[in-house]
Structure formats: structure tokens, C-alpha cells
């Protein structure tokens, strides 16, 4: 129901994504612990497989492909813990997803305040 209205570039996280992305989000949930973040960094693909991610999800994780992660059922509240491991802040993520440079993305934010 909530998923019926299409909004450009926007992924509503409901029934479909919640099921599809369960393993991916569950893995990200473990990143609340530093030991798990370290284990991930030591062997990203192995860590993904341990948590039962599918190939689409693993590929997106390894490529830091945020849009791919969303399409694979990722929820930003959990994904943010993954991108944090990669040292990416929210402007970096914004730039990746919108195809801008980080400076362009930041300028866009500032412009919205005018």
C-alpha cells in the first residue's frame, strides 16, 4: 500500500524490501559492535556469506554501490553503519548516489537553505 506512490529516486522500505533485505540489514545491524566491524574489514566477502547475503547483495557491498544496496533491500538506517565502516560520510554517500562530486553535493545542500 505505502509502496504504491512512486517518488523519484526514493526507496520506501516496506514489506517487499524488508523481506528481500533481511540478511543484508541483519549483517549491518551487527556493525554496532566494533569487533564485527573489524571482522568485516578483514574479510568483507566472507563476512557477507556468513550472514547469508545473496550474490546481488554481496556484489553491492563490495562495490560500495549504495543504489545497488537499496535495490537489494537495504534500509538506510542499517546501511549507514556499513558506509560508516568504509569511512564515507553522508555527503560522500549523497555524491555517490546522485552522480555528483562531493563539492557539488555540498553546494546543492547549501543552496537549499537560501
Amino acid at each position, binding site marked *: 500500500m505505502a509502496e504504491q506512490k512512486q517518488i523519484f529516486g526514493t526507496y520506501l522500505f516496506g514489506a517487499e524490501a524488508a523481506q528481500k533485505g533481511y540478511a543484508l540489514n*541483519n549483517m549491518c545491524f551487527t556493525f554496532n559492535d566494533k569487533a564485527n566491524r573489524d571482522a568485516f574489514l578483514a574479510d568483507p566477502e566472507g563476512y557477507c556469506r556468513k550472514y547469508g547475503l545473496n550474490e546481488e547483495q554481496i556484489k553491492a557491498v563490495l562495490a560500495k554501490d549504495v543504489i545497488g544496496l537499496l535495490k537489494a533491500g537495504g534500509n538506510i538506517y542499517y546501511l549507514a553503519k556499513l558506509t560508516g565502516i568504509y569511512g564515507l560520510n553522508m555527503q560522500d554517500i549523497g555524491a555517490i548516489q546522485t552522480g555528483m562530486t562531493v563539492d557539488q553535493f555540498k553546494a546543492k545542500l547549501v543552496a537549499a537553505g537560501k
Partner: protein
Amino acid sequence: MARIIGSMSASHVPAVGNAIARGLQEDPYWKPFFDGFTPAQKWLAEVKPDVAVVFSNDHGLNFFLDKMPIFAIGAAPSYPSADEGWGIPVNDPWPGIPPLSWHIANHVVEEEFDPVICQQMLIDHAVCLPMACFFEDCGRNKGYRPVKIVPVGINTVQFPMPSLKRCFEFGRAIGRAIESYPEDLKVVLIGTGGLSHQLEGERAGHLNKKFDTYCMDCIAGDPSPLLGLSNVDLVEQAGTAGLEFMNWMTMRGALLGEVREVTRTYHIPISNTAAAVQVLEQLPRLAAAAE
């Protein structure tokens, strides 16, 4: 009887935690944000609340998709924070007030709300950082905890979510619960999150100053025009993370009487977010006028 003295709302952003830790309050990027709290701090020094009921949403620290509540009420003696995965400093626990928590829980269930009751609850940056901004000394003076808290959690993570109308009504029930609590306590309501922002998708970076201003006008005045807004409409206007405005609406619902706007600031951007601070004072009224 307990008395609601007013509300304070503010955006929350993990990056604020690092800014506090690094003492960047006077940094040009951060100054407009932190300065927004000064009038609120002044008001707090006057009204001196005993308790804060804090409306926020979990960010994948306390709840997971295995068992996702719509509403949650903390009823713990103490609320620790924890590592959220972003390297922001872990805050000291905030003390709870279980008798008030249970009073609220009993009352709202009687009014046909179905919250999860949490005798253990981790609070994340959505609680800790606005608290550290409003109660400024908390960030600098570890262990300084001038109020006890009742955290109220609202699901903004996964559809289905409660409508703005349902949130507002939940707030109303909480307001009635607080005002029927027999102890003489001054209670301040705190709503955190929003305003407009969207972190994910090709629309990342979406902000909507006009809509945010409208929302803050409605919060300060008549919130009823917002009650017909669907969550998807809210996303369209305010971005996916703009759904966190549900926290503000629940808070606003708990203000049962007339209000006076004490302060409002609005600044874009902090991180990817429209950063707002708004304080409302509940005007004195006859007890009989309470709903």
C-alpha cells in the same frame, strides 16, 4: 499533579556528536546550529523541569527488523547508550523514572494504544544528542543529568508506520497520562528528528525549506492541517528521513493546552539535514479545561 510545562524539538544528526566531542560549537559550520539552542537553554534555566519525555526513533540500535514495534515506551531505571557503529562517543546513561513510565503505559493501553513496554532500552543519538544540546552541561560535564527521562519510540524505519494523525493521538493520550500522574513534577516534552532530509536514493540531499517552515508554523499554532497528511505525502515533501517529523507530531499531541512559541531557529544544512530548534511553552490553564 504532574504538569507539562512545554516542549522542545530539534533535529538530530550523528555528526553533532563528533562536533560536541571536538568542541566545534564556535566553528563557522556548526555555530548557527549550536547557537539555535541558546534561547532554549535560557528557557530551561527558568522553568527547571524534573522530567523529560523524549519522542524519537531508533536508528538500528535497540530494535531490529526481527521484532519491529510501532510504538515503544521505556520503563527502565536507566537508559544506557552504546556504540552505533559510527565512532561517535558513547554517552553516559540517562536516569529513568519507572513509576511515571508505567503510569503512562497503563494509561495509553487503556486508551487503546498498543506500545511495546521496554524495561531495557538503549538510547541512541536521537535521544542523547538533542539532550546534550538542550542541557548544555551534559556534553561537557559527564554525569550531569538534570532530569529523568521517559523515552518514547516511534517507528520511522519500516512501513507500515503510524500515520501523523495516529502519532498525534498517541501524544494526546500520553499528555493526559502525564497530567494525571499524582506526583508534583514539571515535565518537558522533547521531540527529535527531521526536519526535511533524505539520505538515500537518487533523490539524496532533498531538502524543503518551505515545507519545514509550514510544519513549524503548524506545530507552533494549529497542528490539525498536518493530520490528513499520509506518510507517503510526508516523504514526498520532506524526504524519507523527514518521516522523523512523526516524533514532533507525537510530542505536539501531548501539549494539551494553548502554547506560546518561545524560540525557533532553522538552518540548512547540518550534514544533509535541515536543522531546526523550536521551543513551545504551555500556557497556564484551568485544570478543568484539560481534555
